[in-house]
């Protein structure tokens, strides 16, 4: 026998199921009056530095059908590359920008959207700068453990080419699955990026174990 490692095992994941919105975005699910507003429904709480953008997309299954019961969460740095987190030690993030968003995919179309700012660059573990990106986490019925991915920007070609995470993807022909496409400006002049997530198929999105 040997000494115990005194190690606890992470609680195992279970699917969020088809009714994740009851718990995570109840107002969007029609359950009103319990929470004043759904958590993560707005990332911006006042004047913010940087370029305000809209991110839209949908999550597609292996038949090409958009998921109507998915929930997408995003986490990102502010325009200066700082996180609005308790353990951010490099400086003070924009106080009007939470960096966290949560969206229920539309129950009819499957579309999600976030009003956010274009993130700045953040160093990777070896100090090299990463290209601007948004971390995404996807849960739904039929997804047994939440899927982590990243959204990069198609107008950051040189930064993307130098990104240490993108460089480490063996099949470089899959890198485009992580790059959102500019859709031009909305009527308010705001840039919109589309990021579609494919769970399977020839364009299956790269998912990370990080």
């Amino acid at each position, binding site marked *: 026998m040997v000494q115990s490692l005194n190690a606890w*095992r992470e609680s*195992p994941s279970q699917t969020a*199921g088809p*009714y994740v919105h009851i718990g995570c975005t109840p107002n969007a699910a029609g359950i009103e009056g319990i929470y004043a507003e759904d958590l993560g429904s707005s990332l911006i709480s006042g004047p913010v530095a940087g370029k305000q953008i809209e991110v839209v997309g949908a999550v597609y299954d292996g038949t090409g059908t958009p998921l109507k019961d998915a929930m997408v969460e995003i986490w990102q740095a502010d325009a200066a590359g700082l996180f609005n987190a308790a353990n951010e030690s490099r400086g003070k993030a924009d106080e009007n920008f939470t960096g966290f968003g949560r969206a229920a995919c539309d129950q009819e179309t499957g579309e999600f959207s976030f009003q956010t700012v274009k993130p700045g660059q953040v160093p990777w573990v070896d100090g090299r700068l990463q290209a601007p990106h948004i971390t995404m986490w996807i849960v739904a019925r039929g997804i047994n453990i*939440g899927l982590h991915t990243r959204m990069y920007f198609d107008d950051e070609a040189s930064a993307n080419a130098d990104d240490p*995470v993108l460089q480490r993807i063996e099949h470089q022909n899959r890198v485009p699955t992580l790059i959102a496409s500019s859709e031009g400006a909305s009527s308010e002049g705001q840039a919109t990026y589309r990021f579609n997530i494919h769970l399977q198929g020839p364009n299956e999105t790269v998912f990370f174990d990080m």
Partner: protein
Amino acid sequence: MSNNERSEPAAGGFIARDRAWHPPAFHAPYKSTLKRSPQAALISLPTSLGEETGPVFGHSLLGEHDNDLLINFAKAGETAIGPRIIIHGRILDERGRGVPGALIEIWQANAGGRYRHKKEGYVAALDPNFGGCGRTISGEDGSYVFRTVQPGPYPWPNGMNDWRPAHVHFSVFGHAFAQRLITQMYFEGDPLIPLCPIVGSLPTTDAVETLVAALDKKQTLPMDALAYKFDIVLRGRRQTLFENRREGL
């Protein structure tokens, strides 16, 4: 550096997820996984700032009755129908330490097994006094508590006659996005647990047991509510015992 700072090694990256402990993406008896499971291998990388940070949720977020599902949707003076229960426990990390300030969100069916959702197809009755969601933030020692009704089991379209065991869905935010977790709590003694294709996605009975809450008779409120204890473990950070930055990383 003081001796105090020296006594505890610095926090390093997060301990890798044990993917053989979690359910695989594809589990044939749970049919929805067939077309929703990625086919390519996940790209494994060490955690960096974006995974080691996470949003902060303060107590100002919470309403007075957010963790009391018996009354948080009920008309004044009324409560939800069904067996009254307390669910309590602690949020821990992989070293067994309490995680303070974690946001815990739950959702569940009512005592009849019916969800308040427009796509719900079960004939069981809605309870006009039950919404089905709650949330709280863990205390200094990682502890949390909810008051609710025991959810009923319910049938679901998968096989011709599949029933979910009674369960409560849990979504937990620790301190870092790498810890993000959604799971389900089951109830001690439920005969439907071993029959469920979603429970069956867990590779081992050891993993199943960690999701089954124990009846906690000592915490029961006499003549009021039964109690169940449910601890949740989030990923922990490695201690940086010595710097060992690998070449090219």
